């Protein structure tokens, strides 16, 4: 009897001490570095009472395997627009109640129109940040600045070229070949892109896999030209005192956009929506822009919290720039043809 | 007979204080069976290894059949070694092991086969030709090691404690076999052992070593009957030592005060009157005297211990001056316990004058 009493007492005590935390909740987010930076998340945790645990991915390819390994761990994820559709089709995410998200209507209409974040009339993703897969060169290596994708095929730059180790290499090669329908390439066009990439291979120093790796390659003087996540690696290199210039080639650049999605069955709905609201507000939008140097999806919020220069640098006032980008699209069942071609290039 | 091995002032100093072999000179005649005898650490193995070429002397010269081989590596010397643990190659058959030493001779296949066969027949193990060393017993491996060395027809065969890994029975048998083998092949044998019986049974000549030096060399019976010093006297057989003083000298006969009495002896060394000496007596030469019986020398004392060892008894006796002497007595008949000598009983011991060793100086046992 006494033992039972003591145990009950202990349990009661435990629930007493634990209850405040449980009531306010903890959310686990699987995201890119910078998207849950303490510089703006700490304040959110204080005011909302929601704890945020962030796990970082290195690639869009990490989302599916991590969620396939078993549910119930993550509440929120931020895949890019070429992967959001896969998340929906895999039934990993649930529809958003957009009425609970303040500022939803301030999001660029172009993003809200994208197929990748909706299904059957419901939204599954909340557009957050965007940018270009621009190209970048080291200033001291060029007398005449490069302007074209073809510059990544120049013999005289042999051993000083890098390219993102991603299926997007096919997009780059296709545009070099004049195929601008990069998200709906035919088998022949993919084969042609594959052939171009194989031709380029002897010129490549290394395919870069992570942002940090590309920065290291420039820093160590191994590479002078490559594609890049616009705004991100160039600013990291600027911090190191290495002068690089980003450019949009004449063949155009791809655009990417990351959206917040709620994992299906997440028990922390209240905190999740509080978190989404914060991320779309000035606090989240300028927070991420300051950390990563990316453009944001809520132009209205950006206008009020950014300096005019920053606003301009991030092309927030430039609808034409956004329109010029070939925003990533889900490849659906063509996905395999693209990845297979890219893998074949690497196997060569 | 001609000298086959000449060691000239050989020394092996590992460091100024660690001395393996110290200024040893030795000549071995062709066809001789010479044994280097001594306790472990006396330098006998080092000396053998220097003859084999496995170690280089720090001073001196080694000549093999009149040729200086002091610094020749083993593979350039016409000597072969039988190693203590036989050192048979585990990855080769018996046949391959024996044929191994013939490779450098560039013989044709048939000759090799015949010589391997002859060598294996000699040791009686030709039927093991295709087996591996691991499948053989200790004694068989020993014989294979011999065959492998002999097949090369070396000028000298070196044997490093060849029988030490065998059990007592097998060891005795192999001692005789080795001796016969030596007679049959006519090769010079130089063996190292710490077992005095082995040395006495097998060799033509025994070299007793002590602390890197030769203590005495000679035929087995000479060493036994005329040890040059207490060390040899005690290493070959056993000897009881008594302190003594020379009282009188006349011709070959010396009168010495020892063991509380006056004894006579025929010393091998020249003494002077009044000199301090050590008298040595082998237990097997001491006789228990019966009532009224007499001898050249008679010691009186009390039995302090009786040890039974099957063949006979060893009786320890304390003499009048406190020194001790051992006496062995054979038991030709089974005796009842009551007739055996008892501790504490008085006893008289007799020793013939020619059985008394006399060494100069004192000995600390």
């Amino acid at each position, binding site marked *: 009897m006494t033992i039972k009493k003591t145990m009950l007492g202990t349990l009661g005590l435990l629930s007493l001490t634990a209850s405040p935390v449980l009531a306010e909740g903890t959310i686990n987010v699987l995201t890119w570095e910078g998207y849950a930076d303490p510089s703006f998340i700490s304040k959110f945790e204080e005011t909302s009472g929601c704890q945020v645990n962030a796990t970082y991915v290195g690639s869009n*390819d990490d989302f599916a*395997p991590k969620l396939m390994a078993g549910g119930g761990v993550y509440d929120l994820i931020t895949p890019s627009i070429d992967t959001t559709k896969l998340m929906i089709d895999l039934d990993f995410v649930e529809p958003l109640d957009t009425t609970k998200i303040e500022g939803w209507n301030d999001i660029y209409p172009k993003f809200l129109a994208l197929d990748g974040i909706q299904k059957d009339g419901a939204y599954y993703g909340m557009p957050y940040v965007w940018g270009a897969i621009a190209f970048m060169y080291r200033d001291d290596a060029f007398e005449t600045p490069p302007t074209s994708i073809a510059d990544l095929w120049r013999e005289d730059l042999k*051993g000083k070229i890098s390219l993102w180790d991603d299926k997007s290499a096919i997009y780059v090669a296709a545009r070099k070949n004049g195929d601008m329908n990069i998200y709906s390439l035919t088998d022949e066009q993919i084969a042609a892109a594959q052939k171009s990439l194989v031709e380029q291979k002897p010129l490549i*120093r290394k395919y870069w896999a992570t942002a940090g790796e590309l920065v290291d390659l420039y820093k160590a003087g191994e590479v002078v030209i490559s594609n890049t996540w616009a705004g991100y690696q160039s600013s990291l290199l600027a911090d190191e005192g290495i002068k690089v210039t980003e450019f949009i080639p004449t063949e155009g650049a791809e655009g990417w956009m990351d959206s917040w999605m709620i994992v299906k069955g997440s028990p922390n709905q209240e905190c999740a929506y509080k978190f989404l609201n914060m991320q779309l507000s000035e606090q989240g939008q300028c927070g991420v822009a300051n950390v990563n140097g990316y453009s944001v999806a809520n132009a209205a919020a950006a206008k009020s919290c950014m300096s005019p220069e920053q606003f301009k640098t991030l092309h927030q006032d430039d609808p034409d720039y956004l329109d010029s980008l070939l925003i990533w699209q889900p490849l659906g069942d063509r996905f*395999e043809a693209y990845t297979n071609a890219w*893998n*074949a290039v690497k196997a060569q | 007979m001609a000298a086959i091995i000449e060691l000239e002032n050989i020394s092996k100093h590992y460091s100024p204080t660690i001395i393996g072999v110290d200024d040893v000179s030795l000549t071995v005649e062709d066809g001789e069976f010479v044994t280097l005898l001594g306790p472990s650490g006396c330098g006998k193995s080092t000396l053998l290894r220097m003859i084999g070429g496995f170690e280089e002397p720090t001073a001196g010269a080694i000549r093999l059949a009149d040729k200086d081989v002091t610094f020749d590596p*083993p593979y350039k010397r016409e000597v072969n*070694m039988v190693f203590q643990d036989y050192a048979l190659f585990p*990855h080769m058959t018996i046949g391959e092991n024996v044929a191994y030493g013939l490779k450098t001779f560039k013989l044709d296949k048939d000759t090799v086969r015949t010589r391997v066969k002859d060598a294996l027949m000699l040791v009686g193990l030709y039927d093991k030709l295709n087996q591996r060393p691991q499948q053989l017993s200790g004694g068989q491996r020993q014989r294979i090691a011999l065959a492998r060395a002999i097949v090369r027809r070396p000028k000298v065969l070196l044997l490093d404690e060849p029988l030490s890994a065998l059990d007592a029975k097998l060891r005795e048998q192999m001692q005789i076999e080795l001796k016969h083998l030596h007679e049959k092949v006519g090769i010079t044998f130089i063996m190292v052992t710490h077992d005095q019986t082995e040395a006495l049974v097998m060799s033509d000549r025994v070299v007793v070593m002590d602390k890197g030096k030769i203590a005495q060399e000679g035929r087995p019976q000479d060493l036994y009957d005329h040890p040059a010093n207490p060390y040899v006297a005690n290493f070959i057989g056993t000897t009881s030592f008594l302190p003594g003083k020379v009282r009188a000298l006349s011709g070959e006969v010396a009168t010495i005060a020892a063991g509380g009495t006056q004894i006579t002896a025929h010393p091998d060394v020249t003494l002077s009157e009044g000199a301090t000496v050590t008298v040595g007596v082998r237990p097997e030469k001491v006789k228990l005297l019966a009532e009224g019986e007499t001898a050249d020398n008679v010691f009186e004392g009390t039995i302090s211990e009786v040890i039974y060892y099957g063949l006979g008894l060893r009786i320890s006796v304390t003499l009048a001056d406190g020194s001790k002497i051992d006496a062995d007595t054979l038991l030709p008949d089974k005796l009842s316990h009551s007739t055996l000598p008892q501790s504490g009983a008085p006893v008289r011991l007799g020793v013939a004058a020619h059985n008394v060793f006399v060494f100069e100086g004192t000995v600390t046992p």
Partner: protein
Amino acid sequence: MSFLRRNLPSMLVMGIPLMWIALFMLLPYGIIVTYSFWLKKYPTFIPAFQFGNYVTIFTDPQYVRVFLRTLKISVLVSAASFLLAYPFAYYLVFRCRSVALRTWLYMAVIAPLWVSYLLRAYIWKTILGTEGVLNSFLMSLGIIDEPSSLFLYNQFAMVVTLTYIFIPFMVMPIYTALEKIPTNLTEASADLGMGPWRSFWTVTLPLSLPGVAAGFTLTFCLSFGDFIAPFLVGGPDGNLIANVIATQFGAALNWPLGSALAIVMLVVVLTIVSLSDRMERKGMTGGV
């Protein structure tokens, strides 16, 4: 009841390793084998029983090519490790007179095992890089005028790095094998007329072969399954089979093909292991 009580200890003793094997070996391999017969279908894959994945592996040249490349790299790493490790171990066992120096040198080879794999691989990046230590050294000697990019981001760099990382696994078994050879065997060989070189070929080397086989197996299998070195120091032509498998499980989301690749890789490795095991066994009974 009494049967159970009597046999419980032995059942536990037997049961724990059996459960371990079942849980951590048979079950995962079973899952992988099952997956290897499934079918890729957007968005993921569906259960099936067909050999299409295996057919793909042996018909699509990209997989055969990567397998051959991985084989080549692994053999080169094993060979390079052997060529470096054998003289080193030989020196330690037979030539190094000072016990302190021997211990010290042995530890110098083994100690890097305690350092993180990644750190060790990164070190080679800084050594072999265009602005790296090797280039500065060669330039200061005047051997080259401008930094060479030939050292890093290619198969050479991968072989160097993997050799460095896995060489302890070659040194250890060879050292042990050499140490077990009684010195009197080499003495006997010399005594029987063989010079140092012939003694080495006919006695020391054959008797150390079990150690060499073990070292080859370890370094080969470790290199065969490596996917970090290609990532860190490999160039565009540095994709190894483990990288392809990782891609199939990640980016390509084609677990069935990835599983089939893993099974083929397992078969290759098991073949090597059983071959070398047979060789070691033979070496132990003296048959080389």
